[in-house]
Each structure stands twice: as C-alpha cells, then as structure tokens.
C-alpha cells in the first residue's frame, strides 16, 4: 500500500527537443525504459498501544491500577525540494499517564540543507524544530519499535524531563566523515529551546507551582565513532542548558534560575546474536532560588545502565538491563537528604535502581509485541522531581510490567 505510494514515479514532462535528445541517448546506450526522478514525498508512521501496571508508585497513575495509558501514534513526511533542500516533519500523540504530558505535539519540523558532500564527507544543517540526536537513543525514545524497550532507561531518558530533552526550536548541524582505515565519525551540534506547557510544569515541579518555566538556552555537542568494519560504536555528548522559573502572584515558589549540565558516554556492540549497550551519565544541577529567595544548591548526579539483548531466532529476542542512578554523588544512600528535610523526604528519593527483563517478538516485518517487567528500588526518577511526593510514593521498592503492540509503515 505505502510501498506503492513510495514507488509512484513522477510523470516526466518532455518538450519535443528534450524528447528527441532523450531518445538519441536511449538508443546510444541501449536504454528501453525512461529514467525518472524518485518520488520526492515519503510518508511513514506508527501506532502502538499497550497495557501497563505499576505497583507501589505513581509512575503512571495514582490508583496503581492496570492502565491503557501507553499509547504512541505518529506520522511523518519528508519532501525533497531539490538536490540541496528537504522539508521534514512529524506529529505525535503520546499518552504515558504521569510519565509526561499527554497529548499531541509537533515532534520535529525542519528544513534540511545539504551544504557540502563528497564520497567521504557530508555536512548538513537543520533549521526549525529539531530532535535531540546526541544520546544513544534520544532521537528514538518515542518510537516504540526503534527504542530498546517499552520503558527505556530512566537514568539517561528520564520521562519527567522528556519534553525538555527531546529537542527544541533552533538549529543543528551534522558532519559525517568516512575513512576506510579509521571508520565512521559523526559530529553533531545543536542549539535551541523547548516550549514548556503548564502540564509540563506540573510534571517537573508539581501542581503547587503556578508560575511559568522557560527554557533559556540549550547547546549540545556529541561525537560518535564506529571503527572500520567493527561491531562496536562509541559516543560522547555534552549538554549545557539553563531554565528560569517566573512565579505567579499566588505561588508556593519564588523566581529562580536552573542550570543543567549533562554529560554522557556510550558504547554499543552489535553482534549476530548479542547486542550490548551501555551509557554512563553525569548531571550537574544548580538551583538558585525557587524554594525561597537566596536558596542555592549545586549537586552532581551520576548513573549508568548496561543492557544486553539476545536474538533467540529471526523473530524472538530477550533482553536484560540493569541501571543505577543517584541524584547526589555525595549522598548515594540518601541519608543527608532525609536529614536535611527533617525526615519529610525519605532517603530512597535519592536513588533509582532498576532491573528489567524483557522480550520482543516480530509477527511480521512491521508488527511487533514487546513485554517487560521492572523491579525498581528508589524513587529519584519519579515526577515531580523538584518537589518529591512521599505520600504517593511511600514505598522504596516498586514494580512495573507492560505489554505493547506496535505497527509501523
């Protein structure tokens, strides 16, 4: 169906002289068929629906009942304007319960300029709303069949910050270099801001926050290297972002500035049966104000995940992942957090450890089911992060299972 759409070939309009020239060329090289340009429009999309159950936390909902809030729908189009310019855009509808703001959004909408290329180099600029392409799975985090599991590692891809991290309005540049001896190199740089809605403020700061959160600056850089004919790939990224909170007249919080510096290093191995991936992160969060005028906090969080997938046969694979995160490297067990808050915030809000067991089965080329179970310890990666909710999340240990069906074209 869509294959035929993609295959539609533009009708060529020849004037008489061009037609004669074309015929001469055809005869001279023995051509029987006309050569036409490829259809410039490509359309793709996906639909995914799942069921999810969380016990002992408000990760998805407050009731902790089985939920259908695991919906992801997207459609995108790419239109090649000419040899150098291309337009592309994607709209998505997402519903993950409390994980992020439910609703429709423009995921990306950009103009690509193929500025320079030869057989070894390719430099492209992107203008408009661009996706974060810097972490191992950042550009695929909302694409159910392109990410490694239904819920990807919350260490790097924390859902509570999804809308800030997924991309922004600005520009990006990508430089690809290929060397037969050294391998493939990618250099990515982007700068842009994300619009932050009231729903997103609720998720980040809680319902008591009545003001506006603004994304003031975001600059990201990443480099990837795949050695020649190697099964390994390595990457590094750095992100410098700043936000400001503008309090409302009746507000529990005051004007404030936040600075977030986020660094990652990742490795990916792709063998015949085994796929391994790992990412380590360090984040520095500086808070100036917010809780009361003059408040200052500068803390460094760290984390990692290790993930292994084994391909049982052509259609079935199983996966195991372990991850660990602590929001303050000087308070890994959360004892200081509990002490400073006078016992109001339990120590388990300082860390997040998850062990995940999952499977994936392909019914056809583009129809798949994923299923997984998570054993989680700690609540540091539950929303809202700025003001923890120890009433809703009164258990150190919580569990998640989820099954999701997905179709794409």
């Amino acid at each position, binding site marked *: 169906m869509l*294959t035929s759409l*993609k*295959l539609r*070939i533009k009708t060529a309009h020849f004037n008489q002289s061009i037609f004669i020239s074309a015929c001469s060329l055809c005869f001279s*090289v*023995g*051509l*029987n*068929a*006309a*050569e*036409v*340009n*490829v259809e410039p429009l*490509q359309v*793709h999309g*996906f639909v995914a629906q799942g069921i999810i159950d969380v016990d002992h936390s408000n990760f998805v909902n407050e009731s902790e009942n089985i939920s259908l809030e695991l919906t992801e729908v*997207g459609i*995108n189009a*790419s239109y*090649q304007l000419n*040899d150098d310019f*291309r337009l*592309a*855009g*994607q709209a998505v509808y997402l519903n993950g319960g409390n994980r992020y703001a439910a609703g429709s959004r423009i*995921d*990306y909408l*950009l103009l*690509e300029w*193929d500025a320079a*290329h*030869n*057989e070894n180099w*390719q430099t*492209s600029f*992107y203008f408009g709303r*661009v*996706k974060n*392409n810097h972490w191992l799975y950042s*550009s*695929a985090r909302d*694409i159910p*069949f*392109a990410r490694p599991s239904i819920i990807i590692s919350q260490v790097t891809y924390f859902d509570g910050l999804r809308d800030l991290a997924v991309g922004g309005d600005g520009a990006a540049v*990508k430089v*690809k270099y*290929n060397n*037969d001896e050294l391998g*493939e190199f990618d250099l990515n740089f982007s700068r842009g801001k994300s619009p932050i809605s009231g729903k997103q403020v609720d998720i980040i700061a809680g319902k008591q926050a009545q003001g506006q959160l603004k994304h003031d600056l975001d600059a990201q850089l990443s480099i990837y290297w795949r050695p*020649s*004919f190697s099964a390994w790939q390595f990457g590094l990224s750095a992100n410098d972002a700043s936000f400001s909170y503008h309090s409302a007249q009746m507000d529990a919080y005051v004007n404030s500035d936040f600075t977030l510096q986020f660094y990652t290093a990742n490795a990916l191995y*792709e*063998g*015949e049966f085994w796929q391994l991936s790992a990412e380590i992160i360090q984040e520095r969060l500086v808070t100036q104000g917010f809780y009361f005028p003059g408040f200052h906090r500068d803390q460094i969080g760290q984390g990692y995940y290790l993930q292994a997938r084994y*391909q049982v046969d*052509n259609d079935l694979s199983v996966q195991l992942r372990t991850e660990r995160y602590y929001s303050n490297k000087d308070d890994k067990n959360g004892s200081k957090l509990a002490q400073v808050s006078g016992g109001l915030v339990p120590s388990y809000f300082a860390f997040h450890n998850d062990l995940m067991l999952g499977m994936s089965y*392909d019914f*056809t*080329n583009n129809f798949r089911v994923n299923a997984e179970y998570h054993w989680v310890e700690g609540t540091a990666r539950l929303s809202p992060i700025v003001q923890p909710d120890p009433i809703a999340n009164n258990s150190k240990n919580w569990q998640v299972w989820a099954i999701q069906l997905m179709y794409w074209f």
Partner: protein
Amino acid sequence: MFSPVDHKEENIKTIFSYIIVITLLFSSKVSAINIISNLTADTTSLSVAQLRRIYSMRQAHWHNGIPIVVYVLASKNPLHQQFCREQLRLFPYQLDRIWHKLTFSGYGVAPIEVDTQQALIEAVKTTKGAIGYVENISEVKNVNIIKVED
C-alpha cells in the same frame, strides 16, 4: 553384535545421509547476489566500505553528482538478509536501526522498500541514480552491474 553385511549397510546409510545433508545445505542457499544500478550512475565497481556507506545512507551521491536512490526488499526477506550478511557484512537489524533513526528523527530518509525482486529491478531500471540487488543477473537488462571489491 553386527555382522560385516550390517556394517556395510550402515556405512552406505551414513554416506547417503551425508550426501543428503550436503545437498540440502546447498539447495537451501540462495544463489550469488549481484549489485545493480541505474545506467545514470557512473560507477561499475564499489568497495565493500563504499557499499556500506551507501546502504547506511552515509554517501548520498554518485561520483558524477547524481543523488543515490537506494532500493531494498523487506528486512526479513531471505535475499535481503543474505545481501546484508554477504555483501555489506552487516546484520539486517543494524540497518533497520540506522534507517528507523533517520526516518523518525527527521535527520534523513531511509531506502525505499519494495515488495518483490521484480519490482526492485524495475525501480532500479527506471529511477535515476538508483541502486539495488538481485539474485540472478542473467535475465536483467539495461542496468549497470556493479562489481564489489574488498
């Protein structure tokens, strides 16, 4: 205990079993794969590294500047799987990962997937700058046959 006659019969059975297994092994394998391109592409040979670059969408133009249009069969098609392993020395899922990332992030376009080998041949024949692969080259006319070198 076996008699000498039993031994002989056993040996003959074993030899036949080997012959059957070897025959099955060879018959189940798809024959050699050829890379083809549209006549507008000015290339008749590519290194494995170049072919990988083209299929991983890292090289988008032929030497003469014409944009490359990449055609493929579905990911689970046996010919596609053989092409990936033998010609590109990649696993099909590696290409899927790259193509999905490009398509759904806006940073590029994926190859055009067609349903049958015949459709792929027709697409390569008629589309400017196209590249594809076929199982049996003898019946394919009006395309470049690209030699892949180490």
